[in-house]
């Protein structure tokens, strides 16, 4: 079991800086999700921890020991790849036992460990198959099994579920989380899927263009996003961001006051989550509904703020089929659900 510490970690490919200094302390047994859009450097960050990419600057500490110069095999980690990276010419049992065989473990012991892992992952009876003969979900489990049998201190997952269909993804998501807490192994998990991030993470790193926008628990990120990017990336549908003004301690949208603020007067970005607005005939937000999407449990209303071209989305509980094109609705918002951001830096105010 292990802790992982990242100290001002940087990565450049030539003159191209892809990771701009990331600091983080990961405690033993924590499940950390690195989430961000493609190209944000999240996989590179994971690969630096794995030792598959060199560290340009800064330090990776595993269990308090500097790991920058260590080979991947000496870091006591295991990794699950996006395409599973199974050895196509080996059986399931050989795939899972490869690392142990190299470590020089006796055959019976390997067989016992492989069998135990296979049982844990419900792979019994498949041990003699080749990867080609397995379904996507089974291959995923074999890749997990290969990671488990070596009993590493840290699990690294590089978008392990992105090749699976939606239903299987939900199931595997739960299984991975369950397995990780059962084994109590520290885990770093890369994904671009904010739902995976919200549901699996003990803490998450929201990454954008090589910068950690926010590090915190899913609820912290959801409730108090520290930047515009984090605010819009986490939560579905995405947060509405509106240009507003602060005047006389109030946040004004045009000439309507939406909520109070003690920030200095001037322009501000106002963030409102679609699910935090509620229909209210006296509410400050007037919306022209252009399209409604009934999802069953809730209904998404897409439209624009009345009299403007500013897009706005609201999410209402239950089914609301009554809205027709161009119909106007008014919404109110709880002042605690107003998120204010600096329009220059994007930081939370």
């Amino acid at each position, binding site marked *: 079991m292990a802790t992982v510490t990242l100290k001002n970690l940087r990565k450049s490919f030539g003159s191209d800086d892809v990771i701009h200094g990331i600091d983080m302390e990961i405690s033993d047994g924590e499940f950390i999700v690195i989430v961000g859009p493609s190209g944000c450097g999240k996989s590179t960050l994971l690969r630096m921890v794995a030792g598959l990419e060199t560290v340009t600057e800064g330090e990776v500490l595993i269990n308090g020991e500097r790991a920058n110069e260590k080979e991947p*095999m000496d870091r006591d980690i295991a*990794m699950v790849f996006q395409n599973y990276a199974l050895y196509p010419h080996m059986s399931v049992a050989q795939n899972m036992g490869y690392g142990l065989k*190299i470590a020089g473990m006796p055959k019976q012991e390997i067989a016992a460990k492989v069998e135990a892992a296979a049982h844990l992952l419900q792979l019994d009876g498949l041990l003699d198959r080749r990867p080609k003969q397995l379904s996507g979900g089974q291959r995923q489990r074999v890749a997990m099994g290969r990671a488990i049998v070596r009993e590493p201190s840290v699990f690294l997952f590089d978008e392990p579920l992105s090749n699976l269909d939606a239903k299987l993804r939900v199931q595997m998501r739960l299984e991975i989380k369950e397995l990780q807490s059962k084994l109590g192994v520290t885990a770093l998990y890369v994904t671009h899927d904010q739902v995976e991030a919200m549901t699996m993470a003990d803490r998450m790193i929201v990454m954008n263009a090589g910068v950690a926008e926010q590090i915190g628990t899913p609820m912290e990120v959801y409730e108090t996003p520290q930047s515009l990017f984090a605010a819009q990336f986490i939560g579905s549908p995405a947060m509405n961001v509106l240009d507003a003004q602060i005047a006389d301690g109030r946040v004004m949208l045009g000439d309507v006051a939406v909520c109070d603020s003690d920030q200095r007067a001037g322009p501000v970005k106002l963030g409102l989550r679609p699910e935090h607005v509620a229909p209210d005939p006296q509410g400050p937000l007037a919306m022209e509904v252009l399209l409604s999407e009934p999802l069953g449990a809730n209904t998404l209303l897409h439209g624009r703020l009345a009299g403007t071209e500013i897009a706005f989305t609201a999410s209402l509980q239950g089914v609301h089929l009554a809205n027709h094109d161009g119909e106007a609705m008014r919404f109110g918002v709880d002042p605690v659900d107003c998120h204010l951001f600096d329009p220059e830096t994007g930081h939370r105010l």
Partner: protein
Amino acid sequence: MEKRVTFRGVMLPLLLIAPQVFISAVFFFYPAGQAIWQSLFIPDPFGLSNQFVGTGNFEFLFGDRHYRSSFYSTAIFSILVTLASMIPALFLAVLADRLIKGSGAYRTLLIWPYAVAPAVAGVLWMFMFNTRVGVVSWYLGQLGYDWNHVLNGSEAMGLVVAASAWGRISYNFLFFFAALQAVPRSVIEAAAIDGARFWRRFFTIVLPLLSPTTFFLLVVNVVYSFFETFGVIHTITAGGPQQATTILVYKVYADGFVGQDLGSSAAQSVILLLIVGLLTVLQFKFIEKRVHY
């Protein structure tokens, strides 16, 4: 999803395959038939009449010490040529595969020898190792080694093997390089995390993944060393010294065209024909099994 063209008549398709059929008939079926026919006869010394001997030519061949030793040299020669052309090719491909910059230039340079015709390659090597004016033999002499492939059978064998394998390395390199590039990076990385160092990874992961390519090259190179090295042998040693480098194909030529024993020569080419057939069958059987793995 194979796209098939359908013809309405019979004439057009026949016409379209006619050139191929014609070429095969003239240059393959007819000579092969002639060889089989001729292998049953012994011509008189002046080539005016033929005497039917049945399997006499074959019986004579298998009783002939020189023919058996030619089988032996062919085996040695083809094993050495195959190894000497495949192992360096694989090694170079592994090195080129590890390069990030400039692998294109290496690739191009490494392919060049393949463009050299076997007879030209033979002359090239013959000059380098010429016992009187050869550069390499002169240096070997300076080192105290008396190189003389004209008298020494093993040296002659070594030289024809080197000359035959040299151009072939390029060809094999291309295939190995392409196959190496097709090995998924993440599989190698997974093995690295599993604790396998470079050579361990190479032997337990990369090499097995290359096996379809390796087998294909093995068969192709064996066939090459059997049948396409005539030019090299003819220019460098002409089968000598004391038949040390007379491989089966060379013996067909030597007995038929130099010795004028057409019956025996025909019988030898029939035996060769059977060997090619056997190798081809092997190749197809194996590739069919391997391709869908």
